[in-house]
């Protein structure tokens, strides 16, 4: 085997602390090295030409480049090698820049280290085998999980590009949190007015299959070829027959047993209900936990009044399996549980604020419902306890956010803006009312955002107090808000009629479980992790799975929409070709030696290991061995280390290569 060694100076980035000519000179003497040279910029056109010419002139079989990290230019050099006629996987990179010249000062020791790094690469390349890329077919259908604004936007974009979309939403209607909002910052346009047309478009789009009241329960397969199992929960209404007349709802005798979660528990709903009047699809759901029929076997009022016979008490959950090429996850957020006392000890509640104890201490979404024209008060400012108009209202920002001692460390990003908006809305509705805001900092980065906050302060006379609130308690029908004004350096007490807590945004409760189902990583809070914080913000680290909206981190509407469109675009790029090319770093089993213990199957994170029967000439199965599906294998190599008899090898990183690297130390 003839090996060529190419040592790059990277201008002065490498050569300032590594004596490149000396490295190249020493490598000449290594067994197998035919040609060794150093050059100022190996990645430049002349540098690549130098490599190509050397390959042809010296008839090289493999090359080693001593340069920057393989994450930078591995592809460049592999292409150069390929164009000169050698297999691109016969190229190894010794990382002389990030791992050597940049991190060490002493020329002697870093030169010695560089020599060792190159020697390791030489020993590895000697054992490299030519590999070829793997082609896998692509299913041209996209799964979007979550029917909030991000999911809606992504689904519409993909469908408008001509690809089929399956949109799964766990609630009975799409719309998400955006449908609950009253007006939106910084324009104060009505949230539902801009959202509803989108919802209708989704419903009517011929390429979108909408599955509401459904959940993803299993994801198998890999990029281009996922198999997704979706559970459709029983609505107890036949969707094909229901006309959405609402007769069942108006006649349902259960009126005050269940809180309306769309109204953030500020109102009741009947046992058969639609979440809100613009719901898509406009088909009710029967809540088994409160329905008299399900509880006692009697009633059946809805059955009697439905002239289309759409009520079906016997309906069961159904399960369907869909072939999917790519997945967009857009599961959104929920609010931090402020009064949390038991269930999840991860977050301590804010008992000192009296949420849950005092009915007029509410969270941001509850205020949205009160301010919303379609809400329980028809948009009139009435406080929940007695329906009186609050004359003095206090907003508290950062409840749960930016609080290492009992909340979460991150900033929820949208609260500064929505608090300003809510204070403004209050002032617009209650002209003689006073609005106070306790804040830590005002974070209003965004187009027209700072101006919006200034408007709240200057035009609408919202009083901003910089400081934290220590306690809220009731005294003579007023809520005493005790806090500190850190600018005045004084404690303050405000006797408010109503308090609104701008609670933190946290991931949905089932986010970690869903992440495990799909096979994507998540951070310590439960937000899904992007592949690269700057350059791959919408890709998850799992190929073929993309992220959109607040499930990745707190976001406002425009950001969620932008991210959804970006994820859709990435998905469309993926589906635009018929097959996918994959790196050939995959594991292979030596069937003769496999003992069939299937520990590899147990450890494989991707379910790539299958059972294969080995038969004798009489057709009798004499052993079962592991077989690795090349299309599914992602090449982590966990199986190779687990295999006791060492019958699995990972192409490109096989044990022989690694032993040789160790030996070259």
């Amino acid at each position, binding site marked *: 085997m003839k090996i060529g060694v190419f040592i790059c100076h990277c201008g002065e980035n490498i050569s300032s602390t590594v004596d490149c000519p000396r490295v190249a000179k020493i490598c000449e003497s290594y067994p197998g090295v035919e040609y060794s040279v150093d050059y100022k910029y190996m990645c430049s056109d002349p540098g690549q030409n130098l490599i190509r010419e050397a390959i042809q002139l010296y008839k090289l079989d493999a090359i080693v480049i001593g340069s920057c990290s393989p994450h930078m230019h591995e592809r460049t050099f592999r292409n150069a090698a390929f164009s000169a006629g050698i297999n691109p996987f016969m190229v190894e990179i010794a990382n002389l820049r990030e791992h050597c010249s940049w991190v060490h000062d002493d020329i002697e020791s870093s030169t010695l280290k560089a020599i060792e790094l190159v020697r390791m690469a030489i020993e590895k390349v000697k054992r490299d085998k030519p590999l070829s890329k793997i082609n896998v077919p692509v299913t041209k259908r996209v799964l979007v999980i979550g029917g909030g604004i991000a999911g809606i936007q992504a689904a519409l974009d993909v469908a408008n590009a001509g690809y089929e979309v399956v949109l799964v939403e766990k609630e009975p209607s799409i719309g998400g949190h955006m449908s609950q909002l009253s007006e939106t910052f910084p324009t104060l346009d009505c949230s539902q007015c801009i959202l509803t047309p989108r919802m209708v478009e989704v419903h009517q789009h011929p390429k979108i299959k909408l599955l509401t009241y459904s959940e993803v329960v299993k994801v198998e397969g890999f990029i281009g070829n996922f198999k997704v199992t979706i559970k459709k929960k029983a609505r107890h209404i036949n969707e094909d027959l229901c006309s959405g007349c609402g007769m069942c709802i108006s006649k349902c005798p259960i009126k005050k047993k269940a809180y309306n979660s769309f109204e953030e528990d500020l109102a009741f709903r009947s046992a058969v209900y639609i979440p809100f009047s613009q719901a898509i699809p406009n088909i009710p759901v029967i809540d088994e936990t409160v329905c008299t029929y399900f509880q006692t076997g009697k009633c059946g009022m809805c059955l009697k009044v439905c002239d289309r016979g759409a009520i079906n008490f016997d309906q069961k959950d159904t399960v369907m399996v869909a072939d999917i090429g790519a997945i967009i996850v857009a599961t959104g957020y929920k609010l931090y549980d402020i009064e949390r006392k038991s269930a999840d000890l991860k977050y*301590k*509640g*804010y*008992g*000192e604020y009296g949420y849950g*104890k005092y009915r007029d201490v509410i969270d941001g979404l509850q205020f949205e419902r009160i301010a919303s024209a379609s809400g329980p008060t028809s948009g009139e400012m009435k406080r929940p306890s007695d329906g009186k108009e609050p004359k003095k209202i206090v907003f508290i920002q950062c409840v749960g956010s930016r609080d290492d*001692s*009992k909340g979460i460390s991150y900033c929820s990003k949208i609260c500064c803006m929505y608090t300003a908006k809510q204070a403004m809305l209050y002032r617009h509705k209650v002209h003689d009312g006073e609005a106070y805001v306790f804040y830590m900092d005002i974070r209003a980065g965004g187009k027209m955002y700072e101006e919006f906050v200034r408007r709240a302060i200057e035009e609408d006379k919202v009083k901003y107090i910089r400081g934290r609130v*220590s*306690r809220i*308690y009731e005294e003579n029908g007023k809520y*005493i808000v005790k806090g500190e004004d850190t600018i005045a350096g004084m404690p303050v007490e405000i006797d408010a009629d109503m308090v609104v807590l701008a609670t933190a945004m946290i991931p949905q409760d089932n986010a970690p479980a869903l992440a495990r189902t799909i096979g994507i990583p998540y951070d310590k809070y439960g937000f899904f992790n992007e592949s690269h914080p700057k350059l791959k913000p919408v890709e998850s680290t799992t190929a073929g799975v993309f992220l959109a909206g607040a499930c990745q981190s707190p976001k406002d509407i425009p950001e969620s929409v932008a991210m959804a469109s970006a994820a859709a675009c990435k998905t469309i790029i993926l589906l635009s070709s018929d097959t996918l090319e994959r790196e050939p770093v995959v594991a292979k089993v030596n069937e003769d030696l496999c003992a069939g213990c299937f520990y590899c199957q147990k450890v494989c994170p991707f379910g790539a290991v299958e059972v294969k029967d080995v038969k004798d000439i009489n057709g009798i199965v004499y052993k079962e061995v592991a077989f690795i599906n090349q299309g599914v294998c992602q090449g982590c190599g966990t199986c190779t280390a687990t295999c006791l008899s060492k019958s699995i090898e990972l192409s490109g990183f096989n044990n022989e290569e690694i032993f040789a690297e160790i030996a070259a130390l």
Partner: protein
Amino acid sequence: MNLLKEVFMKYGYFPGCSQTGSAKEYDISLRKVIEKLGVSFDEIEDWSCCGATSAHVTNHKLSTALAMRNIMLAEQQGMENIIAPCAACYNRLIMSQFEIANHSGIRKETEELLSASFQKDVKVFNVLELFLNIGIDKIIENRKRELNDLKVACYYGCLLVRPSGLTKFDDAEQPESMEKIAEATGAKTIDWNYKVECCGAAHSIARRDIVVDLSKKILDDAKYHGANVMIVACPMCHTNLDMRQRVMKRTYPEHEDFPVLYITELIGLALGMDEKELGIDLHFIDFNYKDLVPENSGVG
């Protein structure tokens, strides 16, 4: 095995100055209650000031060294746990441990001052943690009478649950552990607003007016929410809330006496001991459980 070890875990006892003087009854009741619950402790021999009050506002080095001296003694006397009933002592001890653990400079300096090195991780507990460790069930098991005529306001004060990064046993703003312990005696606890507010602490000497105002607010809120007794776990709080009620009457003539007990005294009553035995008669404001029992109930 471990569970047993927890229950019969031996504690080193760091009384601190108050326990030998103004809070003598806290010391008496603590010792009696602990003995009744089958837990024993040894007083740290040759213990000294914890470094609170004057030391920690004037000389940081001294206050850390004083606190660590006591921990060092405990370590040398083979104690793995210390119980510090005074909230200020507790605070000094855990703060010093924190500084020693996180600043090698302070550690070195203190070790040099004391000519010793800290090897083991001695754990410091306040009385709330102590009773949680012993187990609330243990109180219920040994209960001789149910104090169900008491409506208790649990007052934590400022130091017992703070700083929140170090006192991880309870929420710093809305603590609930004292309520749990109090309810084990059969008493009712009330929901009120001033349980972690400041009582004025050491201003008791120099600015009595501040203390009177602050303490009055605390007592009034407890009364307003229906309490008939307040319990505390800090000698300083007790001084301000109990002793200062006399001065309070001078400023606020309408003020009515309101009994303030140590948590250990409350438990002692539940375990069947009487007021005199527990030292409750040493308080400035009289308290007698029988007075609170409706006459016809016949319990007492």
